[in-house]
């Protein structure tokens, strides 16, 4: 037998011993599920591959097998709330098995604020179906089979009259597999007991007790510790390796060289780190071509020589903006720019891989990889390609890392671990250094924007936005190891660049102000690497990176587009003599958009207007059709141009709220990270090497610029105004609010000192340069 079907594995119809051991006290999930006795029930929904959810009930446990993973945003708690609501239980009663290519259905990527939106509804229906089935069984058992609605559920038991039966007792007799029935009634809004409450996060107690297993904590018997050595630049190639120096470090067992991937493997992490630290003297590189120059990046983005496609963003295009703008009146044209930005997770990426010489006889798995990936299914395929194995022989187990905010180094680190484990024939844990995370993580790209608009008596009459940006999409592709750094360094090419800006650089490039009659957005797509002539595919000869590999970072193009759009909106309002908040309200037809903006009125009317203080607002409807966010920011600007954001108010509507405190936590996180991007963050490179490879130290230290993030004494006071819409669909909250922050802060700086800064981050130098001269 080569493999056990996932289905029988989950329901436990066959006795399976699974070689899955997490040390020291990791969740022995697979074994306990496999060992479950015959009494079981499984509900499956399979309307489409991305909305598949499994719920398994046995007398021992109720388990959610979910491809949507906890990224530190509270998803596990919110999903559990949704399930137990229908089952009339509490969150403590369910277990949640996260993405594992062997155990859970593929639910695509956990990203884009889509977890609840895509994952919760199927689970909810599955839970409702399970409850209805249990209720029928209970009715039978309690002697009222013809009227199951009469049996009442409470604390894991059903009762009718003075008789009761527990869920567990019913499940011990059950043997049912069924598909979720979308017609089974759901708990009515008025009767919700768990959904809509601030249930504490289920994962936090273990995290505070240090008993939680992050991916960096995964430990296997016989595991070795690895470090990789990265090339001197994106386009560098290996010249020579002298293995003698690292091998002389006590504890080092192997020096691995595969193409341009160099790694050291040792019995302990200190030895691996020690050997890797001196790599500058024993691993030598040939310099490759420089990337586009960082210092003139904006010009490069705007240069047609660097574009591979010109596209129009279609859905909201209307009227004839170019003609109206050419017809005179109060017309403005302004340029904006945002830099390359890092995810910059607090934990440098780590991963563990166990690549065996032969497949496991029961599961067929030969390579198992523990990773904080946002998409275990695609990572599995890419690693299979890297290792030259069929995808069915590779298992990727999601294990939480530090918060990632998008596609960071997690997948690439997993590929490194897989390569090293394959080379040495033992499980290997790879810990990237901080310098490798900052230097090699895929990043959110820079973008340049030109906005043209006209304001007249009725408000904004025309709007034309042209953006210039590389892709925001280079996630692993299931068939292509070239989408992983280790693949690229071993001769594979990355995936072709996308044909459009949709769901990428173009996100939120359009605005949803329905009363702007003429509206147009064009995008110029910038090459990240050399391509075949006139095409999107990577060049097959002389391939070289032109820019740091760019990818999905929280809200993708939404952050830079909304910075440009909403800064420009204020510039038009000022040119037309209009109040920027009231003009926004006036330009909307959508009452939910108006509601979030109107919620800012109290803050706005009480705003400071003197002494270097001022306030700004900005609005965004995420992806033009999801959550609404309107943000108010108050700043104080000192004589030297240093901006401090002192207070923020965010009004937020993401439909039905599952967990109000969890939602507030997300909004706060968005705002803090947004302020950090607005004021401090910028990736710098020289030739083909990123040079911002550690955190910017606190004053009085100052190095050459490093990657600066907001510190505790720079965080504003935050107020969240959550507009709950219990009868509307649930929309995600992981990233809608961050888009509003850049413009809210820039608009506040303008209000405070008259300096219009059109380039992020808003540094003291830029503020001073933009100040009106006395």
């Amino acid at each position: 037998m080569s493999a056990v079907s996932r289905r029988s594995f989950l329901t436990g119809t066959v006795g399976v011993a699974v070689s899955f051991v997490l040390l020291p006290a990791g969740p022995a999930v697979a074994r306990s599920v496999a060992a479950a006795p015959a009494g079981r029930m499984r509900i499956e929904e399979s309307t489409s591959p991305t909305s598949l959810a499994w719920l398994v009930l046995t007398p021992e446990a109720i388990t959610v097998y979910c491809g949507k993973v906890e990224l530190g945003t509270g998803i596990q708690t919110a999903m559990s709330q949704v399930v137990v609501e229908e089952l009339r239980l509490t969150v403590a009663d369910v277990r949640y098995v996260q993405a594992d290519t062997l155990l859970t259905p593929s639910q695509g990527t956990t990203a884009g604020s889509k977890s609840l939106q895509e994952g919760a509804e199927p689970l909810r229906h599955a839970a409702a179906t399970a409850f209805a089935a249990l209720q029928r069984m209970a009715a039978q058992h309690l002697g009222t089979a013809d009227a199951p609605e009469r049996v009442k559920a409470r604390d894991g038991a059903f009762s009718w009259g003075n008789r009761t039966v527990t869920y567990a007792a019913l499940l011990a007799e059950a043997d049912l597999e069924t598909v979720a029935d979308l017609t089974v009634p759901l708990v009515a809004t008025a009767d919700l007991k768990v959904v809509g409450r601030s249930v504490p996060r289920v994962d936090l107690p273990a995290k505070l007790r240090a008993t939680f297993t992050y991916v960096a904590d995964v430990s296997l018997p016989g595991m070795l510790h690895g470090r990789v050595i990265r090339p001197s630049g994106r386009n560098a190639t290996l010249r020579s390796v002298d293995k003698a120096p690292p091998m002389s470090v006590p504890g080092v067992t192997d020096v691995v060289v595969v193409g341009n991937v160099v790694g050291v493997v040792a019995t302990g992490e200190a030895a691996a780190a020690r050997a890797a630290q001196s790599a500058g003297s024993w691993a030598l590189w040939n310099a490759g071509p420089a990337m586009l120059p960082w210092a003139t990046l904006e010009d490069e983005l705007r240069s047609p020589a660097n574009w591979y496609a010109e596209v129009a963003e279609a859905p909201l295009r209307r009227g004839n903006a170019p003609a109206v703008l050419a017809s005179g009146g109060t017309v403005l044209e302004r340029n904006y720019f945002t830099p390359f930005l890092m995810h910059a997770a607090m934990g440098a990426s780590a991963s563990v891989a166990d690549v065996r010489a032969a497949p496991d006889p029961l599961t067929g798995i030969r390579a198992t990889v523990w990773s904080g990936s946002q998409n275990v299914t695609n990572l599995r395929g890419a690693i299979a390609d890297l290792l030259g194995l069929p995808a069915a022989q590779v298992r990727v187990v999601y294990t939480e890392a530090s918060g990632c905010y998008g596609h960071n180094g997690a997948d690439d680190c997993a590929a490194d671990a897989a390569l090293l484990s394959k080379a040495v024939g033992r499980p290997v844990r790879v810990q990237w250094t901080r310098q490798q995370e900052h230097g090699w993580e895929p990043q959110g790209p820079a973008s340049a924007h030109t906005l043209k608009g006209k304001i007249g008596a009725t408000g904004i009459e025309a709007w034309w936005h042209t953006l210039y940006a590389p892709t925001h999409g280079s996630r692993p592709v299931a068939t292509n190891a070239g989408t992983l750094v280790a693949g690229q360094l071993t001769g594979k090419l990355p995936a072709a660049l996308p044909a459009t800006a949709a769901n990428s650089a173009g996100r939120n490039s359009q605005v949803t102000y329905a009363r702007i009659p003429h509206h147009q957005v064009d995008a110029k797509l910038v090459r990240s690497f050399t391509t075949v002539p006139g095409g999107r595919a990577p060049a097959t000869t002389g391939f070289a990176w032109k820019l740091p590999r760019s990818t999905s970072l929280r809200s993708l193009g939404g952050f830079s587009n909304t910075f440009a759009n909403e800064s420009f909106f204020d510039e038009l309002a000022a040119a037309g003599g209009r109040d920027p908040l009231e003009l926004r309200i006036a330009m909307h037809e959508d009452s939910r958009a108006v509601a979030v903006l109107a919620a800012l009125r109290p803050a706005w009317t009480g705003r400071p207007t003197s002494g270097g203080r001022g306030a700004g607002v900005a609005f965004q409807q995420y992806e033009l059709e999801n959550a609404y966010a309107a943000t108010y920011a108050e700043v104080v600007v000192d004589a030297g141009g240093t901006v401090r954001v002192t207070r923020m108010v965010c009004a937020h509507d993401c439909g039905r709220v599952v967990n109000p405190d969890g939602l507030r936590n997300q909004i706060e996180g968005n705002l803090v990270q947004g302020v950090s991007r607005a004021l401090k963050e910028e990736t710098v490179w020289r030739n083909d090497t990123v040079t911002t490879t550690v955190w910017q130290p606190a004053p009085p230290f100052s190095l050459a610029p490093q990657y600066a993030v907001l510190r505790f004494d720079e965080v504003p006071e935050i107020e969240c105004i959550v507009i709950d819409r219990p009868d509307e669909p649930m929309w995600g909250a992981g990233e809608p609010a961050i888009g509003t922050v850049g413009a809210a802060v820039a608009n506040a700086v303008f209000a405070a000192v008259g300096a219009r800064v059109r380039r992020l981050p808003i540094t003291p130098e830029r503020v001073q340069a933009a100040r009106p001269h006395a």
Partner: protein
Amino acid sequence: MTERSIRLNGAEVTLTTDDPLSQLLYALREQAGQHGPKFGCGVSQCGACTVLVNDVPTRSCVSTVAALPTAPPAQVRTLDGLDPGHPLPQAFLDEQAAQCAFCINGMVMGSLAWLESRVAAGEKKVPTRSEVATHLSGDNAQTFTYLCRCGAHNRIIDAIRAAAKEMAR
């Protein structure tokens, strides 16, 4: 081969290393099974690896096993050894003061030493928000910097103040 006997959360533990530059962080994780201290940056910038050595917040990613004091054996305290009922972790739960929580080890252990020293000095006042923020921001001279990337800062400050109140009672 260097051996260091320490008292880890009150229990005697021997750490061994064959490299005088071996970092304390790796020894605590591999040899003593500690998961509280984490590798965040490895270069003393973020605080994720913080442990207390004789009640002094110490960045275990850059301090070495060999440098631990020997006589008497160093008292090393980690998040793993902190009583879950202690006011600090409890306050973090009460305030839901985390997102991914990867950074939290630093704020808990760094504040633990700070708040204990305040209590020992008879200080009854709860530190202000700005005092807590300043403490966690660091000045690279007297105090360390603690970083959080998820934006849980305000909640973390609230939690530390709540714990301070409790600990001063």
